């Protein structure tokens, strides 16, 4: 019963909802998406809206806001309402994950002609079958009639048919006048007819390339005939309400009753929401989506498939599986054609997952002779080194701070996040630039790397990240020790504390120590690295010079660096379009040698030596130290 009208301003959009509906849902129905870091639990305070007029109730009792400001997720509609949605509460498109904005990027993102290497041979295609109508004397079944059309002239075996397609068969052939369009998929080496449409369907088959990140999920809608990405959507992984990193989520899955189901539900809700938006925007139905390739880290893969992940976090860190069966969207609960095969990328080990395999696949680093370093910096840092003959991989626990986690004023790279910082020597003057040019709301990963470099350069901090004794009003005592004010935001001051800086130095040290450990394992010098692919989270927006200045990335010629953006979803797309590429992914996952850093004696030593700006061994960063020498009078 839709008995209340809610009018959203300044959009002027109206929806009718039942009394008791929460405002977040009402807004979603009106096509206005609100921020919701906590997933509607009423804890993050990011979905603040202002009720201008009308009756409402605060769920769970008290309102902590004044002047009609309420949390949309905790506010129930009781009558006709007029609500104003401030810009800061709106969910903006995910900057870090959607490549359209790459034009502003510091370094252009590298596109790969990966299809050329692997060959265009989509996992799913549509084909028109023209059948002979049956007669009293020629009375073979509809299916026999259909399969005759797939009789192998090209030597391929006759496809099987799924039950759903079989149910569609008698109507479809007759409705189409014995012309029927079959959607045929390669399901783990066997062809299967998934779907039958009467007549000749003009629409291509569609597939989904899905990246499940610990922090964010991205879905690409792929035209399986042209191979083009038609549309894409990204959102925060709703599992975040159960913890920011994989370890807390594994604990939740194991120790909470229903924990695993909750996490599985959360990621499916996230994905289904994105799929719904794609379907709506492109005028498609769920039935049109007939295949998906899913890439995610090992824990995400376990949770996606509801496999208990507990031993991933317990020594000796054993996942339940590193390769996964092909499942049907129907049994998983994905909003797609129920018969659509869903492929999950194979992983290497507990902490090097299918997302990395997808990245290595799409960069083609395992095809060339050049020694290549692949770095994916997200909630964790994964690193792969090698070429076509060998590949070694490791995971370093960089922690979530480059995604804004564990930092006092940290946030993800959404509008309002400080992404560039300049500090005058002595730290009196600071200039910041934010994503989208909005008033500063927090500081994101690329901004944090920038801040580390800029504060060191301006002599505000020393090489271990301690504040120097400074005569600047920006440096002051805070509740957690000294802190430096970077900017004045409308809602809060954007500060970096001493603890934040220590966190950042540990994170950048973990990444660099991981790189050094891989190099040491294969006894190669840094200079042997011919190419570096930087993928993931802040990939595109990272200021390369700063990343080298703080000692996070090796001091190599900038021309060797390439930003590859979200290589996980790109790898998934490639695997949709090339069966050879999918086979290659399987080979890569098995070929990669996993280096367990927690078992490596030298890693700890590399780590401590990297807890310095840029490094205890200054000779590893000649370009940085040269600049410093020349900067001295």
């Amino acid at each position, binding site marked *: 019963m839709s008995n209340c009208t809610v009018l959203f301003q300044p959009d002027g959009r109206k929806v009718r909802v039942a009394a008791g509906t929460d405002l977040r849902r009402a807004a979603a129905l009106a096509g206005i998406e609100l921020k919701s870091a906590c997933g509607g639990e009423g804890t993050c305070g990011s979905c603040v809206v202002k009720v201008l007029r009308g009756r409402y109730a605060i769920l769970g009792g008290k309102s902590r806001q004044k002047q009609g400001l309420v949390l949309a997720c905790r506010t129930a509609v009781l009558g006709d309402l007029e609500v104003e949605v401030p810009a800061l509460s709106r969910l903006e498109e995910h900057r870090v994950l959607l490549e359209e904005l790459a034009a502003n990027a510091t370094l252009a993102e590298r596109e790969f002609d990966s299809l050329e290497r692997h060959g265009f041979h989509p996992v799913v295609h549509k084909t028109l079958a023209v059948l002979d109508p049956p007669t009293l004397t020629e009375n073979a079944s509809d299916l026999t009639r259909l399969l005759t059309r797939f009789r192998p002239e090209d030597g391929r075996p006759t496809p099987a048919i799924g039950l759903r397609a079989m149910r569609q068969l008698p109507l479809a052939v007759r409705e189409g006048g014995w012309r029927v369009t079959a959607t045929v998929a390669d399901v783990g080496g066997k062809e299967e007819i998934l779907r039958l449409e009467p007549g000749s369907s003009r629409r291509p088959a569609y597939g989904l390339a899905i990246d499940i990140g610990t922090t964010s999920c991205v879905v690409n809608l792929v035209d399986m005939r042209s191979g083009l990405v038609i549309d894409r959507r990204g959102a925060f992984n709703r599992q975040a309400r159960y913890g920011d990193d994989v370890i807390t989520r594994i604990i939740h899955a194991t120790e909470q009753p229903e924990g695993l189901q909750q996490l599985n539900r959360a990621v499916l809700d996230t994905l289904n929401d994105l799929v719904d938006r794609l379907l709506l925007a492109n005028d498609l139905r769920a039935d049109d989506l007939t295949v998906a390739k899913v890439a995610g880290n090992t824990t995400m893969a376990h949770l996606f498939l509801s496999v208990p992940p507990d031993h991933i976090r317990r020594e000796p860190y054993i996942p339940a599986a590193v390769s996964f069966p092909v499942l049907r969207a129907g049994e998983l609960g994905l909003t797609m054609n129920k018969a659509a095969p869903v492929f999950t990328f194979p992983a290497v080990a507990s902490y090097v997952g299918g997302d990395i395999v997808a990245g290595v696949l799409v960069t083609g680093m395992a095809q060339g002779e050049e020694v290549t370093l692949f770095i994916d910096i997200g909630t964790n840092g994964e690193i792969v080194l090698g070429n076509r003959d060998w590949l070694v991989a490791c995971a370093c626990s960089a922690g979530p701070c480059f995604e804004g986690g564990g930092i006092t004023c940290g946030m993800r790279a959404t509008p309002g996040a400080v992404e560039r910082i300049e500090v005058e020597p002595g730290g009196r003057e600071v200039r910041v630039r934010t994503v989208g040019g909005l008033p500063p709301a927090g500081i994101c990963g690329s901004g944090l790397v920038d801040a580390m470099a800029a504060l060191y350069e301006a002599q505000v901090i*020393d*090489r*271990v990240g*301690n504040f*120097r*004794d400074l005569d600047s009003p920006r440096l002051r005592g805070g509740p957690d020790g000294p802190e430096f004010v970077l900017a004045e935001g409308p809602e809060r001051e954007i500060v970096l504390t001493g603890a934040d800086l220590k966190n950042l130095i540990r994170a950048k040290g973990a990444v660099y120590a991981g790189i050094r450990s891989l190099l040491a394992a294969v006894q190669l010098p840094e200079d042997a690295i011919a190419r570096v692919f930087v993928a993931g989270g802040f990939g595109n927006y990272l200021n390369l010079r700063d990343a080298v200045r703080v000692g996070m990335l090796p001091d190599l010629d900038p021309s060797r660096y390439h930003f590859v953006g979200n290589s996980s979803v790109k790898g998934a797309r490639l695997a949709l379009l090339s069966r050879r590429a999918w086979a290659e992914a399987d080979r890569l996952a098995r070929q990669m040698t996993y280096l367990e850093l927690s078992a490596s004696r030298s890693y700890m*030593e590399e780590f*401590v*030596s990297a*807890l*310095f700006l840029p490094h*205890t061994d*200054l000779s590893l960063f000649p370009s940085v130290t040269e600049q410093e020498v020349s900067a001295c009078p």
Partner: protein
Amino acid sequence: MPVERVKERYASKVGEVVLGATPAEGGTRSHQVKVGGDSTLPFLHAEGVVANRPVIAMEVQDVIPEWNPVFTRPVADVMGDPGAWAQKCVEAFGADLIYLRLDGANPEKGGRKPDQCAATLRQVLGAVKVPVIVVGSGVDEADDEVMPVVAEAGAGENLLLGTATQDHYKTLTAACMVHKHSIVALSPIDINICKQLNILISEMNLPLERIVIDPTVGALGYGIEYTYSIMERIRLGALSGDRMMSMPVLCTIGYEVNRAKETAAGAAEFPTWGEVGDRAVLWEAMTASCFMQAGGHIFVLRHPTSVKLLRQQIDALMAGK
């Protein structure tokens, strides 16, 4: 056939740090003490020059310390009078240096004020003519108050002041800069942090030859091998030309040994261990001896007998020169 002796040649050597100042240098010490300067691994006289003898500092505190009885007994008559205590260490026990620890500045141990601490230092400087090492209480806030005043009170004496750590080095470094003292840089048995701290201090423009490394030692039986290998690597770093690891090394042996159960537990508790008196002394001497082999230069001890034992060993090892 004569065997040819293979000799290692090193690119560099340990830096030399000079402690104390005579009236000619603006101080009141009778002589200076030089440490470091080695161009080889410890005591390999055939391969290089062991420029200076390792030296022994004896520990004196401004307040009566809670040491094990074995260590307080020889100085029981002078504890509470830092001047007399220092004098006894030098004149009766033959200490090369005095290591004055201002433990009383710790708010929980009396919270002595900066001027009281400075007075204690003057008392010690007046009582002995050997160079002096002064370290704070280890409570950062208190030491930040005390050490600049102490540094000023000892201006001209070319003291060795401690203790700087990675998270707390600026005040002390600045005090050493202003009043021309040397500094003890303490790292937690970690060669990287050791080097990082040296870089941090030298970037405040304190010259490298005014820094002494305290790598943190462990007593015999308490992870001694960790510090041994760290000290060995510091020495190898210095010899291979890493200037940020080329400083002489100070070992707070007495402090660590005093914490070992073996220097406190009586024979009644562990009948097979023998009398605690001999045991504690040997524990201190053995620990010091071990770190002398590893590359230590300044040994801070508490018991006069272990001082004597260590000196005998230094004599023997230096006799090969």
